[in-house]
């Protein structure tokens, strides 16, 4: 976490008392209530959570809602550019944003391994609060479980989210049309390479930071500017390639992209070159593809780049009218090839 108003706060459960989470912290008794009150309610501070009810009760401002969930098991829990807490908020916020929804409320379930550092838990809770504030959502209900030592990996988090849809567009892969421009909001591959470098202790000249970021505000700006968005997809596991392949296969049209137009920073390119990775398959946590009609592409790009929001945003390709449902890429030297999903994770080259 960067130095700001959140990082100055210290853990409210005296470290000397409980430096580590005990099984009893999930046991339903006093310790659990203390943990919830002093860590989660304190960090997430909002009136709905403070009612200490079994669930959150609220009114929605729209009759179209979006609902999503995701679980976060990232290893390591803290990585350059973020941590599991920020990821758990941004990831679910982004899934709502991809439906064209304005995120309203999140739920949050913690599965904590016995012995987990109380201080780390506090840091993660604060990071979630910071991410929630940034994304303008509230964490309004939650759950805490503690599992025996050895039965978890430190900490797992599940978040679910509800968002409201304030427009009449259907934003979905099936809405992609021939001629649509394919836009990415920034350079790709940072999150996956940051995690990879950190996990495997690979050190490069400069630290690669995760691109973990909330996208809802950006989507709302595009919608506020009346841009006719056909499809949105955040580029998480499987990277840009997997997202494009999924969209092409659902829409039935060919998506043609150009390698030279896809923004990748030198740090990520260099790390990928060393390991034999293709950045188009590397995970991201704050990147999306946006499909808009060709005539709106430049306007969308201007909105993305406005006020330095996404300076690297770029049009990387277009949707063709061939009903092949595949993705093709024009290589740097000018030939065309298929882009396919990988069967599993990318593995470093052997020689």
């Amino acid at each position, binding site marked *: 976490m960067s130095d700001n108003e959140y990082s100055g706060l210290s853990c409210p459960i005296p470290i000397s008392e409980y430096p580590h989470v005990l099984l009893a912290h999930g046991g339903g008794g006093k310790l659990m209530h203390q943990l919830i009150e002093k860590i989660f309610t304190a960090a997430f501070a909002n009136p709905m959570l403070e009612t200490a009810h079994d669930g959150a009760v609220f009114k929605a401002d729209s009759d179209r809602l979006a609902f999503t969930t995701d679980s976060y098991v990232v290893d390591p829990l803290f990585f350059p550019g973020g941590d599991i807490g920020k990821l758990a908020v941004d990831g679910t916020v982004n899934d709502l944003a991809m439906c064209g929804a304005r995120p309203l409320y999140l739920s949050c379930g913690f599965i904590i391994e016995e012995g987990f550092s109380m201080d780390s838990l506090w840091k993660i809770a604060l990071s979630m609060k910071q991410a929630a504030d940034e994304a303008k959502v509230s964490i309004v209900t939650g759950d805490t479980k503690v599992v025996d030592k050895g039965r978890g990996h430190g900490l797992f988090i599940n978040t679910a989210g509800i968002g409201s849809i304030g427009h009449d567009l259907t934003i979905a892969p099936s809405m992609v049309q021939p001629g649509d421009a394919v836009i990415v909001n920034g350079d790709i591959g940072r999150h996956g390479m940051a995690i990879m470098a950190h996990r495997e202790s690979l050190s490069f000249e400069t630290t690669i930071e995760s691109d973990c970021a909330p996208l809802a505000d950006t989507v709302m700006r595009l919608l506020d500017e009346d841009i006719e968005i056909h499809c949105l997809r955040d580029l998480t596991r499987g990277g840009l390639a997997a997202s494009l392949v999924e969209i092409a296969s659902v829409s039935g049209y060919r998506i043609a992209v150009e390698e030279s137009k896809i923004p990748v920073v030198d740090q990520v390119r260099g790390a990928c070159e060393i390991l034999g990775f293709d950045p188009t398959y590397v995970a991201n946590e704050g990147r999306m593809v946006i499909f808009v009609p060709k005539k709106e592409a430049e306007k969308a790009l201007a909105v993305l780049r406005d006020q330095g929001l996404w300076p690297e945003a770029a049009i990387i390709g277009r949707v063709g009218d061939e009903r092949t449902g595949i993705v093709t890429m024009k290589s740097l030297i000018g030939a065309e090839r298929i882009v396919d999903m990988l069967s*599993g994770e990318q593995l470093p080259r*052997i*020689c």
Partner: protein
Amino acid sequence: MRYVDEFRDHEAAVRYIRQINRITTREWTIMEVCGGQTHAILKSGIDQLIPGKINLLHGPGCPVCVTAVELIDRAIAIASKENVIFCSFGDMLRVPGSSKDLISVRAEGGDIRTVYAPTDTIRIAYENPDREVVFFGIGFETTAPANATLVYQARQMNLKNLSILMAQVLIPPAMEAILSAPGNNVKGFLAAGHVCSVVGYDDYEHIVSKYNVPIVVTGFEPLDILQGIYMTIAQLEEGRAEVENQYRRAVRREGNITAQKIMGEVFNVVDRRWRGLGLIEKSGLALIHKYAEFDAEIRFGVEQLTAEESTECISGLILQGKKKPYDCPVFGSLCTPEYPLGATMVSSEGACAAYYRYRKEGTESIKQSGGKERP
């Protein structure tokens, strides 16, 4: 990015392709030896841009693909033992042995770990003194120095719980095996640049004079490969057969002497069985007597374990350049990267996997290049 962009430059590529077109007067079949080059050719689309008269065959230079089934079975036997931590490069985990792969051993409870450098296993062995740590030593001359270093350091550190399963292979004997096989039609080679950066290219002189084929030591970027093709075709068209070095920025004639020294300290040359190619004389590396205590085959008593290759898969013919992936009746249907029947579909450096990933059927570009790519 420096040292990358200039070797992928579109304008320069166009100029090379024009030059290759200009000098090519007849049909030539040439082979890129290394799987990394195959991958680069298909990814950048070089096969679609060069003249149709040039037929690129994909050689046996994929370490995962050529590791014999019996060695995979031995790896599985060792990895299944209690108290063993089996360390391997990731690609090897999915290669089918006779009945299963290493990934299934992991699912069954085996402690199998992916490592990025052979010497990572030293740390693992050091941290787990009560367990046996085994490294799967695969690869060509490129991985040999690092694997030799692992064994050398293990002996220096007196690590008693570390051993290596040797599957190391050598490239020049495989090139000779291809050239001397009946029905060979390879007329020139793009030799693997990184192999030569280790061992140099003196060894190729006798192949060139014995078989009268040009060999051009070639790099891995699109422009390296285009220049390598140009140099090979120029030799063929002029009736020359020489060893030439396209990859001068990385390769010297004598290679890397320090790397060769550590290889010589730890390994000697032995006959080895290759998947798809069979037994090739003097084509493998084994531990010399001084280091025999680190030989996992001996330590775990698996050296007698043998296995026959499946007859379903034509990867042997693909590795010899006699068939292309499309020639296989089960390519892309029964055999896919998710359910590989043979090693060439498993490894990202394997020819079948590269074709599957970059050239699946049904696209315009394939239809256009169909005359050349498909029989």
